[in-house]
């Protein structure tokens, strides 16, 4: 008999459907992405039988992406890690012995105590991959368990994902702002206060493919259906760019210049919101003076975007009622990442598109429940130990606590040089830096093998684990762990409903290791006790994990125009949470720290302008990190369905120039520069600039031999053979992942004799 929709998709967290148990949960761990979509697990006998999108989740309304639907294939994959493994061969030999968790904890305890005693706790670095359900657990272990201040991203150069944007806007706005797609209202587009943005300026991301920063790209499509029009800033013709009123096809790495050019138009044509600027901002005169240095014809020359397009797009945005900006990763990925973020955010700010419905709105973690990289930093470390954090000595933003991580490039330098002190142990939890995160993968490979002891916690055996781990621990996937998400709203729970062999959740692992190393700092018995402790630190959240689990999602009422209501500043006054109480167009703190207080543009370290001679040899501008729908960073390469859709690494090249070079669709080609080379297959794109190459990241080949020299082929197609570490902006943030140079030539049998993995692991590198 046919059931009604309400009977099929219920609002309680768990029910029976025939012989299946249905559980409402959220997906926010590996393999996965940054979102946290609501989904339904259908289980029987400790097995996930199928997954469906939860129509009662306002976040994704039942919709899912191909990766989430394909989670079933990953959960039971034959290659999954099942129990702790101890290395028995040399590093790189991929020889392991199964051991018990107890034995693993013994080994960890012995090594940590020895290293703490001989070198000091600071010589142990905790590291994670990109921000998912692993944001606070490893920081807590690093600070409270190891006693070290050195928690950070695993070699993400210039911390250049989200952090540059977050750090800049924390300093000048006092908060973080996101594009309002009604995502913070439980009734979404029907909310009476909500207004659809008239124009969205999409800058440096393709949210449909990238699932960026707790932002579901298809929300933009829902707004387009409701009348929103687009401006897209991207070297690549994305589907969104193809439907935009203005597609600004800029030269990679010139975002700051384009932003300043648009500001020039908006200020000089008096298109900004004079009342908002006068009442709520600080430093407009200085900003106006600065943008005079960026007349539109000069900006057109720098960015390759025609002058008329810059002018028209700037007017189109400024005259919207209202406009909003959806900015993404590529804003961060130039040396000038922070000033680029500054220029872009300032466009919205001077137009008054701040914290009003349908604009860029301020958001904090749900119920202010902490889930950040700074968890436990102040509580568990002495000021003397905190002062030892790598990178703090060089960068004031780090020192002042703006970004709660050890500076990734400084960690690498400490590993290589022993200065300012040696790094002797790495704890890498769910991260695979030589496959995708760190720039200059071959350099990292050498560095991470120099330590006394390394632990890798992951879902599968990875190239990073084979290359450097002494101990590999199996982590649980989403339905195998209890957890929560407060990375913006709503507050969401994920529930443990199945157990896979001896895998443990990240929370459990951190708890058990912490209890061994520093039991006084880890008084909790279970993962849920630990989560409840995190909840108890919030001033406004009064419930426990069990209550949240049954609610699944918990929305707080969202308030607009918080600066008018005294909801942003700790003193309860109106205004912004900054030293001047204003939204700072001119940063008083940057000025105090000796940094340029205003946005500016600088050329990438390698470009046709900054290195014209080198560019003769390497005529293309190379952007790395291209996203695809099938993969999240280095994940999902094991899954046959994902590889059916996307079997090989691809780079985009303009169709005409490819024809001139005799390159056809699907041809294997080498991308090469002064730093190294990698091979990928050509995808011909008629819309890409003739001067730009766009390469995918994260490629390794789980089907290949894991031991060296193959090492799962991790260097063969790795676009991070061509990028470099330690080219950061003066803030410590920003790195040129998306704007270096290269040449391209077809791969032949003769020029492919020594593949990069062999060159790196056996022949001393490029």
């Amino acid at each position: 008999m046919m059931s009604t929709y309400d009977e099929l998709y219920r609002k309680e967290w768990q029910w029976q459907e025939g012989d299946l148990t249905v559980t409402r949960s959220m997906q926010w761990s590996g393999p996965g992405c940054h979102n946290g979509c609501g989904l339904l697990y259908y289980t029987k006998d400790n097995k996930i039988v199928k997954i469906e999108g939860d129509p009662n989740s306002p976040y994704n309304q039942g919709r899912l992406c191909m990766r989430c639907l394909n989670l079933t294939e990953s959960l039971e994959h034959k290659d999954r890690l099942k129990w702790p493994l101890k290395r028995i061969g040399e590093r790189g030999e991929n020889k392991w012995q199964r051991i018990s968790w107890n034995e693993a904890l013994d080994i960890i305890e012995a090594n940590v105590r020895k290293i703490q005693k001989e070198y000091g706790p600071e010589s142990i670095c905790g590291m994670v991959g990109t921000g998912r359900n692993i944001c606070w657990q490893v920081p807590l272990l690093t600070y409270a368990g190891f006693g070290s201040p050195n928690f950070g991203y695993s070699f993400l150069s210039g911390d250049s994902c989200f952090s540059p944007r977050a750090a800049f806007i924390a300093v000048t706005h006092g908060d973080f702002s996101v594009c309002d797609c009604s995502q913070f209202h439980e009734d979404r587009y029907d909310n009476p206060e909500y207004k659809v943005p008239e124009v969205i300026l999409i800058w440096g991301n393709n949210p449909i493919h990238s699932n960026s920063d707790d932002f579901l790209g298809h929300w933009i499509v829902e707004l387009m259906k409701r009348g929103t029009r687009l401006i897209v800033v991207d070297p690549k013709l994305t589907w969104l760019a193809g439907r935009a009123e203005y597609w600004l096809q800029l030269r990679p790495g010139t975002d700051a210049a384009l932003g300043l050019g648009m500001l020039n138009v908006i200020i000089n044509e008096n298109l900004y919101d004079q009342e908002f600027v006068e009442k709520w901002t600080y430093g407009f005169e200085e900003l106006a003076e600065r943008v005079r240095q960026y007349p539109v014809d000069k900006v057109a020359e720098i960015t390759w975007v025609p002058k008329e397009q810059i002018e028209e797009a700037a007017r189109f945005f400024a005259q919207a009622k209202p406009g909003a900006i959806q900015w993404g990763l590529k804003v961060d990925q130039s040396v000038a990442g922070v000033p680029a973020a500054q220029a872009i955010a300032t466009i919205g700010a001077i137009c008054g598109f701040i914290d009003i419905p349908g604009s860029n709105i301020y958001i904090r973690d749900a119920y202010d429940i902490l889930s950040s990289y700074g968890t436990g930093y102040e509580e568990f470390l002495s000021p003397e130990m905190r002062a030892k954090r790598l990178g703090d000595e060089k960068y004031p933003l780090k020192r002042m606590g703006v970004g709660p991580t050890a500076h990734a490039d400084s960690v690498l330098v400490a590993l290589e040089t022993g200065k300012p002190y040696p790094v002797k142990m790495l704890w890498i939890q769910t991260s695979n830096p030589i496959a995708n995160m760190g720039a200059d993968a071959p350099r990292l490979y050498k560095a991470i093998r120099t330590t006394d002891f390394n632990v890798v916690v992951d879902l599968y055996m990875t190239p990073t684990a084979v290359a450097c781990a002494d101990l590999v621990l199996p982590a649980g996937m989403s339905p195998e762990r209890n957890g929560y998400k407060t990375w913006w709203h709503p507050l969401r729970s994920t529930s443990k409903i199945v157990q896979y062999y001896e895998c443990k959740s990240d929370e459990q692992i951190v708890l058990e290791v912490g209890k061994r190393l520093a039991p006084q700092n880890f008084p909790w018995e279970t993962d849920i006790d630990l989560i409840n402790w995190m909840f108890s630190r919030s001033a406004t959240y009064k419930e426990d994990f069990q209550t949240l689990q049954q609610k699944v999602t918990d929305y707080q009422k969202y308030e607009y125009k918080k600066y008018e209501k005294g909801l942003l500043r700790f003193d309860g006054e109106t205004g912004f949470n900054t030293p001047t109480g204003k939204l700072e167009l001119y940063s008083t703190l940057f000025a105090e720290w000796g940094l340029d207080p205003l946005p500016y543009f600088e050329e990438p370290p390698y470009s046709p302008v900054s290195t014209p001679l080198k560019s003769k040899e390497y005529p293309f501008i190379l952007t790395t990190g291209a996203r695809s729908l099938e993969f999240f960073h280095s994940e999902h390469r094991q899954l046959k369905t994902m590889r059916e859709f996307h079997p090989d690494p691809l780079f985009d090249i303009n169709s005409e120039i490819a024809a001139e070079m005799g390159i056809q669709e699907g041809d294997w080609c080498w991308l090469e520069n002064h730093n190294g080379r990698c091979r990928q297959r050509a995808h011909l794109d008629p819309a890409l600039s003739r001067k730009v190459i766009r390469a995918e990241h994260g490629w390794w080949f789980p089907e290949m031999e894991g031991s060296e020299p193959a090492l799962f082929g991790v260097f063969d197609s790795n676009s991070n053979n061509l990028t470099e570490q330690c080219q950061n902006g003066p803030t410590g943030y920003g790195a040129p992942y998306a704007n270096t140079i290269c040449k391209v030539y077809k791969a032949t049998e003769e020029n492919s004799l020594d593949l990069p993995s062999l060159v790196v692991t056996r022949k001393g590198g490029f």
Partner: protein
Amino acid sequence: MSNYNRYGLLIDLDFCTGCHTCEVACKQALDLPTGQFGIKVHQEGPRKLENGKWEYTFVPFPTSLCNLCEDRVKVGKLPSCVHHCSPGIMHYGTIEELTAKANAKPHMVLFAPQ
């Protein structure tokens, strides 16, 4: 029986982003092996038009394997492709219902797979 009692899929060509969700949803619902599809996304473009804009359009195409998720609709669920469609551009219903929707907005295609 009148054609109007048949069921079909209505697809909005303006907003299909080519996300491939429908293909994976379908493969799982019908338990299809590698290389087989009950619905397949086809791509048109990108191609520059004379007015300077770009043709860049996707259309999910139901193959002969599509049975409109008969097992799911029997119990009251939507076909898996429609349920999961990320941009929300696929509609399931009788040809009559879908024709009315198609009349209300341009750039729609209507498939009646069975």
